[in-house]
Structure formats: structure tokens, C-alpha cells
């Protein structure tokens, strides 16, 4: 037995996302957690560029829309200027792992006390499905029409693995949104990250494995299966770093 009621942090109208897009599910989860934590008036969504920017018309809380890849920098300024607010940046893979690589790594390395939620769907959705830094080897995109070839484009970037190597971050975890279990774990992870931020623990990073039915050219249900077969084996879900676990062990 369980209950579910939609959070008032998202608009009372359909999202701008395509049918089956897990961006909308991710936004819904974040909204649910903020409502649960009673942070509706305190949360500040730093909105990046890409499909993530569709949240400008969907998210009902305060928001600060920023330049492509710069959300961790703008969030640094916002949080330093007003440490009381619950600040989170919501970024896609092109935004975070390509153009914004310096900003995300440096904010993580400074241990900025905000949360970054990273939606990884292995493509540039908004611009029409080009190769992203996280595109899987062999995955076809509009700029890798024969599939991504590591000889010329390198390998998909594992951000949780990179960030968890830094001393400063407090919590680094990856979840897959293609199953009820994954969604529930993601929800708990987001809640933990936000709570750690409210407790002043430092930088928290949540990677959400998502999909893109439109640009993967698959039905929504097929994308969930594709994630099981291809995405999850490469981008292993799990908790990569959690300073509170160490505290609990001690």
C-alpha cells in the first residue's frame, strides 16, 4: 500500500518533454523531494541549456536560468551570496560533461555546498541528437551516423567516477530511471543529497541515467530496454562516495 500525490512544484499542465522522456520524470522526482522536505519556498533551480531548459516553463519554484555549461559557476555565486537557500543545478550531459566540464569539476573540487543533478541520456536532445560526451561506443547519432568510433571521438565520459576521485565532494551517486526500483533509489538519493546540503555537508552530485526516445529513434518502452542492455552495463549505478557512510562506520 502506498500513496502518490503530484507535487505543486511543477506546473499543472503537461511538461514540454516528449512522451516517455525521463527528463520529466527526473523533474517530477526533484519536485516530490522538495515538497517532502518542505523546501518549496527555499529551493532555487539553476536551469542550464538544452532540454533541461524546458523546466523554465514547467518548474513552479524560483529559478535562475544560465548559460550553457555554467550552472555550477552561477550556482556557486548564488549559494555564496545566499547560503540559506537550497540551491541545485539541473544539467544534461552535453552541458555538464562537454562545454561545462571545467565548471563542474571545479565546483566539485571546491566542495561548494549545493547539489548538481546530472541527467545523462547520451545525446544532445534539444539540438536534434548529436553525439554527446556520454554517447556509448557504437551508438548512432546525427554526427556519428555509423556509430560512435572511439578512434576519433574517444570514450563516453564517466562523471561519477571522475568526481568521486576528488577529496571535496560529499555524496556522489548514479541511478537509472528505467525501473521502479531505480526511480525509488534515485528519489532517496536526491533526498539524501538535498538533506546533506541543508546540513552544510558540501558538494553533492546525482547522476540520473535517462533516455531520449525521439533522438534514439525508439519507442519509450524500447528505450527502457536499451538502457538495460547498453547504458547500465557501461554506466554502473551505485553510490560512489558518501561521507556520511564513513561517519556512520566510525
Amino acid at each position: 500500500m502506498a500513496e502518490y500525490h503530484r507535487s505543486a512544484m511543477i506546473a499543472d499542465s503537461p511538461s514540454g518533454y516528449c512522451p516517455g522522456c525521463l527528463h520529466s520524470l527526473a523533474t517530477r522526482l526533484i519536485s516530490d523531494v522538495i515538497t517532502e522536505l518542505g523546501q518549496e519556498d527555499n529551493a532555487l533551480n539553476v536551469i542550464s541549456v538544452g532540454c533541461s531548459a524546458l523546466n523554465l516553463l514547467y518548474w513552479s519554484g524560483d529559478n535562475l536560468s544560465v548559460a550553457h555549461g555554467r550552472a555550477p559557476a552561477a550556482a556557486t555565486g548564488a549559494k555564496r551570496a545566499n547560503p540559506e537557500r537550497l540551491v541545485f543545478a539541473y544539467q544534461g550531459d552535453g552541458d555538464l560533461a562537454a562545454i561545462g566540464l571545467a565548471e563542474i569539476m571545479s565546483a566539485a573540487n571546491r566542495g561548494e555546498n549545493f547539489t548538481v543533478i546530472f541527467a545523462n541520456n547520451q545525446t544532445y536532445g534539444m539540438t536534434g541528437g548529436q553525439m554527446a560526451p556520454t554517447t556509448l561506443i557504437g551508438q548512432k547519432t546525427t554526427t556519428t551516423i555509423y556509430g560512435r568510433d572511439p578512434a576519433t571521438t574517444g570514450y563516453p565520459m564517466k562523471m561519477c567516477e571522475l568526481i568521486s576521485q576528488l577529496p571535496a565532494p560529499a555524496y556522489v551517486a548514479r541511478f537509472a530511471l528505467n525501473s521502479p526500483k531505480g526511480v525509488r533509489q534515485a528519489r532517496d538519493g536526491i533526498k539524501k543529497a538535498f538533506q546533506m546540503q541543508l546540513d552544510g555537508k558540501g558538494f553533492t552530485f546525482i547522476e540520473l541515467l535517462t533516455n531520449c526516445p525521439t533522438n534514439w529513434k525508439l519507442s519509450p518502452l524500447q528505450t527502457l530496454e536499451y538502457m538495460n542492455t547498453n547504458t547500465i552495463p557501461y554506466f554502473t549505478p551505485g553510490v560512489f562516495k558518501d561521507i556520511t557512510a564513513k561517519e556512520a562506520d566510525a
Partner: protein
Amino acid sequence: MGEKRFMKGNEAIAEAAVRGGCRFFAGYPITPQNEIPEYLSWRLPEVGGAYVQGESEIASVNMVYGASAMGTRAMTSSSGPGISLKAEGISYLAAAMLPALIVNISRGGPGLGSIQPAQSDYLQATKALGHGGFHAMVFAPNSAQEAVDLVYDAWEYAERDRNPVLVLMDGCLGNIMEEVELPPMKALSDEDLPEWSLTRRNGRDYQGTITPIYTEPILESINAMAGETYKAWEEEDVKVEEFLLDDAEYVVVAYGIASRVSKEAILRLREEGYKVGMIRPITLFPFPKQSIRNLDYSRVKGIIDVEMTIPAQMRDDIALQVLERCPIHEYGRSGGCLLDDDGVYEAILEIVTGGNDNG
């Protein structure tokens, strides 16, 4: 009486910013402006502000964007190459209608250029600080004291217009030490926070949004509003110094360090009986059009554009006001080679005695 101190121009800017209410700085090292971040790195924490050394100029200006959105008086500083990198963020500040102070302590360009002082960023400052066709008010002080006075009030303009303000000063003025009189610390409380700021949601029953992206009709109206703002600046906010113009037959137009060197040369020429005066734009944008347009061209025989850059960059703005009523000469040094009294004196002398006909 304010407090008198002997300070480097860069340090004077930093202290004036703090006294003007600045509580957030982010920047990236680049010569010749390093004293600004160095000073603020210890000074801002003293007054409850925050200093962040950004990973790049791009990140730094975006940190300023974030802090400014919270209603905090925020600034960044750099020099030419770094201002180019900040161009993205400055354009976004203008789009999102966020106040901020940007300081450019300029050096030789283009490219990495040289680390020595130059006035090579006039066109960037006044015409295209970033993409999208916007302007910032541009202040060009010619002394540490004037820099203090302009920086101290920079946020009054920036918050009034909800637009970034640029202070353009070269590496000479940034690094020479002068006596300055410092104004008192502005007392700002939470009540002074702009009502649009995202500081807190308390009591506010509407969603707070700050965005650099708009639907087309809204963007068009925002563009039109910006146009009205720039027009209002021309009517109300032009700052200019007019020096010995009453009987002047030759008029030097120079700003910043070039105006200081030119003034020495003009005083020497005056002693020798040459009727030379000077128009010194203090705001480069809005440009002091009227001062140049309204000169008595039945008397004025020539305009001399003196800049520490080659080719002169202010010339087109001057020409639009002179309207071919007299020749426009130019003299400058560039690449980090400095203007000096003798050089400027001799260049003007050659022009006024008819030895130079390059107008």
C-alpha cells in the same frame, strides 16, 4: 573629510568597490589587474562578503551572474584577453537584466598581445562587449581618485538600469600609486535588496525567475526597452571634462591615461602661445557627442585624437560629431609602448604648426 590613503589604482578600485557595497567578487588572474583580486581575497571576508577565484574568466563572470541574481552587489575584473572570455557572461547579464561591475585594466592587443598598458579595448568596450547588440555604461577614469569615485557609485547606475557597468582603465593607471580620498562605507541592509532579486521567497507569492532567454515578442520588447535606456543615458549620464576650450584652435580628444599625458603637453604648448584645448570623455558610452558637435568650427582648425593604441579606435565616434568641419588627426603609441609628454607635445606641435597634414 574622507580617509586619505596612498594606493595603487587597482587597490583603490577594490577598496572603493567594497565601500560602494560590493560583497561578491570572482575573477581569474591576469596581468595587469592582479592587485584587484588579491586585495579583495582578504578584504571581502572582512566585511562578510565572498571571494572566489574562478577556474576561468568564463566561470568567474557566471559566478557574478549567480551572486547578482541574489541581489548581492557583485563584480569581476580582468584585462583584454579575459574580457573577451567574459563576453558570454556579460551578454547574459545584460539579457537577464542583472547589475554587475566589470573592470577592464587594459593591455596591448589583439590576442595575448602584451602585458604592458594600452588602450586597445575601446571598440570592445563601447560597441560589442558580447553578442546580441547590447551596451553597458563605460566609465574611463584618468586617476585613482576618479576611479574611486566612479566605482563607488557604479552599482547605483547598474541597479537603476538593471544592466552591467564597465570601468575601462589601462595598466598604467591600475599600477601607479596616488593619494586617494576614500568615501565612507555605504550602509546597505536587506531592505535595499532589489525587489526582483531571488534572495528569498519569504512572503513572495509569485515565482521568482531570472532568465536570459525569452519568447520572441517579450525579447523584442526587452530590446526596445534597452534602446530607450541607452537614449536616456545620452541625455542624463554623459560625463566629460572640457579643458581650455574657450579659445582653442586645436582640440585634443583623449580619455584615461592619454588625457593625462595630453594635459601636460597642452600646458607646455599653451606657455608657448599655441591655443590647444582638450575634450576628455569620462563616459565612453554614452559618448560626449555634444561637446564635440558644438565646438565652434569657425575657430577650431583641427581635432587631434590621442590614444595609447594604433590605429586610433575612438576616431569614428569623433568623426560622427565633427562631420568633416575640420581635419581629424591622430597620434598614439601601441602594443604596450607608452605615451610620454615629449612625444605627445611634439606630435601636437607638428600638427598645429602645419608640419603634419595627415587629416
